[in-house]
């Protein structure tokens, strides 16, 4: 009985961790990318550096 509760608790923790990774990892990478910009700009962040058509 106690082991069943332990396994249920373990599975619930794993489920939370999986969902956290699934929904949080890409935003984490994007956040690091945003912080790495010298002058953060939402337009450049979404559409790329400005002046793309000038070259």
């Amino acid at each position, binding site marked *: 009985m106690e082991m069943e509760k332990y396994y249920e608790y373990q599975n619930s923790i794993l489920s939370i961790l*999986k969902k956290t*990774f699934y929904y949080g990892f890409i935003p*984490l*990478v994007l956040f690091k*990318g945003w912080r790495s910009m010298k002058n953060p700009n939402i337009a450049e962040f979404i559409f790329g550096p400005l002046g793309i058509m000038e*070259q």
Partner: protein
Amino acid sequence: MEATADNNNNIDSQEQEIIGEPNFFQSFLVKNLPFYKSLPYPGKAEDMISEVKGLVNDDIYEGAKVDVTFKISPFFETSHQLNVYTPNENSRTPKYSNQNVYSKDSTLLYGKIDSERRLFGRFDQGFFNNSIRVSLTNMMDKSFKNNLAGELEFKLPFMNFCLKADTENQRGFSFLTSISKKLAIGYENSYLFNHSQSIKQIQFFVNNPLSTWSLVVGNTAQIGSSYVYRQKNLHIGTDLVMGISQEGKFMSEYSFGVRYAFQQSLVKFRADSHGSIFGSYDQMINSFTKLNLSGSLNYFAQDYKFGLGLTFQK
């Protein structure tokens, strides 16, 4: 496996080797093992093999694709890929995928998600001038079913040692060490708990400035040999695998690939013993636009593919 290979190939292109002052471990080894002072670092066996695989494996795609890559900062790059193709039961290429890479100092973060809601994430962290490197990768689908894998890598001046494990109950270790300036020998052992099977391989490499030859012998009754030749813009690779197949029959596979880079274009050609021929042509239209034409045909299997791609990279 193709998705993983593609991911691994993209990740490898982003990794940067950091060369700095020798740390405590390196100084200790050089002091106590003078024989290894003149030996070069052999690198990773997988990297050597993947160099040949990159030449002899075709990267054919069917239909059309558009790839847009932005380098937002020196440490961050994002890429969007759209695919338009005739769907069939064998094609698993997603219609849309997005890749994000953050790489700074000894840290690497890589994330990829596609229109089928499959997520691939990787985190790499190096310590002691990248002498010790920890890598965690996770592949997860929309039902939250995942495969988590970890790797611990030790880089010594003359040796590379890896420990691997994943949630599919696979454990393994491998090492590759230089035994002379041109020769390197390695060993790999992977144990599959689900199948109660151990896969063991002995690897032998001959490294020259212009070429690399490798021989891999395993307990699966198969022998593999690869050769790659590099000279300026020309790369030639061959790969041969022979032995006993899983069905208990003798099998052999031979592949040949060549790649030549012109000033504004790149030509690839590949052929194998199954009768498959692949050709690819990349042409730079301007500084940030590249056109790709590729085709693959196999007369014996009546399999023909053609692809057209555009790549925008800023």
